C-alpha cells in the first residue's frame, strides 16, 4: 500500500512536471522543468526495477541532455511565441487524448500471460560469459543494434560538425558554457574529476555482471571531460586532429573487427567463440567506452567556432 502511494506520488510529479514544461511561456523555465522530468523518470525506472535503464536515464536522459539544453539556453535569445487559436488547440488536444486513450487501453488490457523473452535470455546467457542479462542482449543477441547505435552516435557528431562555419573547419570547439570558467569551478573540477573517472570506469567494469555498462560509464567520463572544459582545465581538441579521429572511430572499428572475425571463428558475423566470448566483449566495451565518451563530450562542446591556428 505504501509502495503504491509512493508510485502514485512519483507518477503525479512526472505528469505535473511534464505539463508544466509544455505550458510555461518561458523557454528557460521549460528547460529546467525538463531536467527535473529526467530525474523523476530515473526514480520511475528504479521503481520498475530497471536499474540499468535508471542509470542511463540519469546519466543521459537527464544529465547530458540537460547540459546541452542549458548550453542552448545560454547561446539563444529567449523567444516568446504567440499562442495558437483555441479551436486548433482543442482539436489537437482531442487527437492527442485519443492516442493516449488507445495506449491506456493497451496498458489496461494486457495479453496474458505477458509476452517475455526473459527465459530465452536466461537460457543462452551462460554461453556469453556475462552475468548481466541486459549486457547479454546488447552485446550478443542484439549486437547488431548496438553496433549500429555506435555508428549513429558518431554520425550525430559528424552531423553537428557539418554545421561548422566553413572558416572554422578543423578548429577547436569552444567551452560548452563559457561563462562558468571562474571562481571555485577549477578547484571543484580538480577534486571531482579523478573520482568521476574512477566511478565511470567502475560502472563500465561491473556492467558485465551487474547494473552498469559502457553507455552509462562513458557518459560519466564524458561529463568529467565536459567539466574540465568548462572549468578551463583543458581545451577541446581541434577536430582535424588525426589522433582524435582515431579515438572516435576506435570503438566501431574494434566492434566490426571482432564481428568479422566471428565469421570464420564462430560461424557468424558478430558471433563470439564461446571460450573467448567474455574477453572479446570486454575488449569491445573498453574501445566503445573511450569512443562514446569522446563523442558525447564533443557533441556537448558543439562544432568549432574559430579557425584552426587562431586559438592561443
Amino acid at each position: 500500500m505504501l509502495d503504491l502511494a509512493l508510485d502514485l506520488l512519483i507518477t503525479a510529479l512526472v505528469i505535473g512536471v511534464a505539463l508544466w514544461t509544455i505550458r510555461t511561456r518561458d523557454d528557460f523555465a521549460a528547460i529546467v522543468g525538463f531536467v527535473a522530468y529526467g530525474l523523476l523518470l530515473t526514480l520511475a525506472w528504479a521503481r520498475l526495477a530497471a536499474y540499468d535503464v535508471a542509470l542511463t536515464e540519469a546519466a543521459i536522459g537527464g544529465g547530458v541532455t540537460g547540459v546541452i539544453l542549458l548550453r542552448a539556453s545560454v547561446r539563444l535569445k529567449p523567444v516568446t511565441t504567440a499562442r495558437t487559436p483555441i479551436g486548433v488547440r482543442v482539436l489537437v488536444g482531442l487527437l492527442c487524448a485519443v492516442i493516449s486513450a488507445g495506449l491506456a487501453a493497451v496498458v489496461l488490457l494486457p495479453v496474458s500471460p505477458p509476452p517475455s523473452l526473459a527465459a530465452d535470455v536466461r537460457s543462452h546467457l551462460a554461453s556469453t560469459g556475462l552475468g548481466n542479462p541486459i549486457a547479454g542482449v546488447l552485446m550478443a543477441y542484439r549486437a547488431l543494434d548496438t553496433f549500429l547505435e555506435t555508428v549513429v552516435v558518431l554520425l550525430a557528431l559528424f552531423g553537428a560538425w557539418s554545421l561548422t562555419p566553413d572558416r572554422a573547419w578543423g578548429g577547436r570547439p569552444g567551452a560548452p558554457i563559457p561563462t562558468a570558467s571562474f571562481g571555485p569551478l577549477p578547484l571543484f573540477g580538480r577534486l571531482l574529476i579523478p573520482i568521476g573517472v574512477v566511478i565511470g570506469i567502475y560502472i563500465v567494469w561491473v556492467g558485465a555482471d551487474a547494473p552498469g555498462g559502457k553507455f552509462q560509464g562513458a557518459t560519466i567520463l564524458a561529463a568529467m571531460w565536459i567539466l574540465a572544459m568548462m572549468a578551463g582545465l583543458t581545451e577541446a581538441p581541434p577536430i582535424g586532429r588525426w589522433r582524435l579521429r582515431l579515438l572516435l572511430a576506435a570503438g566501431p572499428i574494434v566492434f566490426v573487427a571482432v564481428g568479422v572475425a566471428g565469421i570464420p571463428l564462430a560461424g557468424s558475423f558478430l558471433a563470439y567463440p564461446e571460450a573467448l566470448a567474455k574477453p572479446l566483449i570486454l575488449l569491445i566495451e573498453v574501445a566503445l567506452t573511450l569512443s562514446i565518451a569522446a563523442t558525447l563530450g564533443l557533441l556537448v562542446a558543439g562544432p568549432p567556432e574559430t579557425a584552426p591556428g587562431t586559438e592561443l
Partner: protein
Amino acid sequence: MTPGLMATTPGGLLLVLAVVVPVIGILALWLVRWRAIEWVAIATLAINLVVSLATLQAVRASDASLVYLVGGWMPPLGLALRADGIAAVMMVMTGAIVAVTALYARGQFGFDPHGPERRRPMVFWTMLLAITGALNLIFVGEDLFNLYVALELLTFAAVPLVSLDGSRDTLAAALRYLVFALAGSVLYLLGVAVVYGAYGTLDLVVLAEMRGADGALLLAIALMTAGLIAKTALFPLHLWLPPAHAGAPAAASAILSALVVKGSFFLILGLWFDLLPPGLGAIGANGLGMLGAGAVIVGSVLALRQERLKLLVAYSTVAQIGYLFLVFPLATGSEAASPFASLAWTGGVLQLLAHAFAKAAMFMAAGLVYEAIGHDRIAGFKGLGRIAPITVLTMTLASVSLMGLPPSGGFSAKWLMLSAALGEGAWWWAVVILAGGLLAAGYVFRILVPAFSTPEAPAERKYPVAPVRECAALVLAVIAILIGFLPLAPWPLLAIGRIAQVSP
C-alpha cells in the same frame, strides 16, 4: 515456427556486407589522407553495387529470400536480415543511383586534393555512404527495432546534406525536416513498443505467423504508419520536403528525393502487406490512397506554379510519391492470388524505380543547368538546348518518364496501375492517375518549351561542365526509360519470398 524460414541461407553473408561495407567506408573516410577521400568513397560504393547485384542474382537463382541470422541467434531473441525479391531490387536501385551520383559529385564542393581539408566534401561523402548503409539495412532488416535504428541513421545522414550549403534558408529547411523526421521516428517507436507488449517479438516473420485481428496490432500499425508518412512526406505532411530538397546541392537533392523518402515508404509497404491481417486493411488502404491522390493533385498544381527549376522538381516529388500510395487500395482490392501477384504491386514498384532514376537525373540536370547559366529561373531558360544539349536531353528523357509517356518506366508503372484500377472497377483512381499525368505534362513542358526555343540573342555558357557529369545524369535518365521495356505484366521477381506469402 517454420524452420525453413529461419536459417542462414547460402549467400546470406551478402546482406551483412551490404550494411557493414558502407560503415567501414565511413570510418576509413575520416582516417585516410584528405586527398584520398573521394577514392575511398567511390571504391566503397563500387563494392556496394557489386554486393547488391550479387544479392539480386542470388535471390533470382534460388527463387527464395536470402536470410542471415546475425551472431547465429534465432529470432525472436536474435536479429535476422532478409532480402526478398523486392528488397534485392531496391538494393540494386540504391547501389546504382548512389554510384552514379558519386561520379557526378566527384571534384565538387570545392574539393581540392592539394589544399587543406574542407567541410563540404567531408560531410557529403560521409553522409552519402551513411545513407547507402542505412537504406540497405532498411531493405534487409527484419526486426522492427533494428529498422528504427536504421531510420535514425538515415535521418542523421540526410539532415546534414540538406544544410550542406550552410545558408540561413537551408539551415531552416534542415531543422524543419529534422523536426518532422524525429516526430515520425518517435511515433514509429511507439508502435514498436505496442507490438512488443502484445507479441513479445519484433521480428517480422515471427509476427506474421502470430498476427491476429487484435486492437493492439491495429493501433501499432496506425502509429508506425503515421510516423513513416511524416518521413515519406505524404500529403498533407509534405511541407518540409520542397524547401529541404530544393535547397540542398544537386547531388544531395538527387539522393534525398530519389532514395531517402523511399526508405520509409518501403517500411510502410512491409507493415501493410506482411503484417496487417488480410481483410482488415480495406478502409485504411483507401485512406492512404486518398492521401496519395491528394498528393498527386496538390503536388502537381504547386509544381506548375514554381518559378525555380529545383523547387519545381521538388514539388514534383511530392506528386510522384502520391502515386506510390495508390498501391494500397489497388493491390488489396485486386482479385489476384496474392497482392504480390497483382498488376498494382508491380506497377507501384515500377513507379518507385522509375521515379528514383528519373528524379535523380532531373535534379542532377537542374544542378548542371545552374552551373551552365548561373541561375535556375525557368523564365530564363531560352536557348538552353543550344548551350547544354546533353543536359536538356537528360531533362527531356526524365520528363517523359515523369509524365508517363511511352516508352518509359513511368509509363509502364502508370499503365499497370491504370489497368488495375479499371480491372477492379475503381475508376476514380484511374481519373487521379490520368489527371496527374496531364498536370505533370504541364509542368515539364514549362521547362522544356523554353529550353528548346531559339533565343533572340544567342545565350552563352557561363561555366564549363565536365562531360562525365553530364553523362552521369544522362545514364540515369536512360535507365528510367529502359525500365519501360520490362513486360507489362506482374513481375515474378517482386513476389519472391514475401513474408506474408510464405507464412500463411
